[in-house]
């Protein structure tokens, strides 16, 4: 049972990959990619958790009074959540350009256009 959170992260990642590969709409594919991103957050934070720990934020508790979880993985995840959102915006801008050029948002139709 000590690997359950990791398995959930792996499952979420695979689900996102499945959606990405079978997607019929590019915006849907971008949404699936953000599901894959979420899997990495779950995995990182699960690695940093400790039983009975609390957040290493000492504005309202005394340092050393309670065990704390790992701050390093949290810092990695925190920046990536926001940066990931702007990357999503970049991908959506690409989708808009593709639709402007080719008139369709279906990846399969795009392949047919290429010939």
């Amino acid at each position: 049972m000590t690997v359950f959170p990791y398995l959930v992260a792996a499952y979420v990642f695979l689900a996102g990959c499945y959606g990405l590969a079978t997607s019929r709409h590019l915006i849907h594919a971008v949404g699936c990619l953000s599901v894959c991103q979420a899997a990495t957050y779950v995995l990182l934070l699960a690695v940093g958790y400790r039983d009975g720990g609390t957040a290493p934020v000492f504005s309202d508790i005394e340092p050393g009074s309670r065990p704390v979880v790992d701050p390093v993985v949290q810092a990695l995840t925190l920046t990536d959540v926001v940066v990931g959102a702007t990357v999503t915006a970049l991908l959506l801008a690409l989708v808009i350009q593709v639709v402007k050029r080719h008139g369709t948002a279906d990846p399969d139709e795009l392949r047919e256009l290429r010939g």
Partner: protein
Amino acid sequence: MDDPLIVVTLLLVAAAATAAVAVRDPVRQALVLSVLGLCLAVLFTVLQAPDVGLSQLAVGSALTPLLLMLAVRRVGRRAKGTTGTTGTTGTGDGEREKAR
């Protein structure tokens, strides 16, 4: 791993991720993604990462849905013009593609 709260939120995240992938229409997917964001934020809080939870709430509750919906609105209008199907902004696409 004896905390039922962690198990419940992990299961919620897994279910929301499945739903977000299974829902094929971008507009409906944006709705599910915003609920997935909430589930993730709760999971992060439960894993004692309030900073990350705050990040997820800030991004997932309003910014990502707004970006997705604006992209759908832009793309849907164009796609409607070329394929000649009637349907209001964007939402027709998913259903149309399913029927194909």
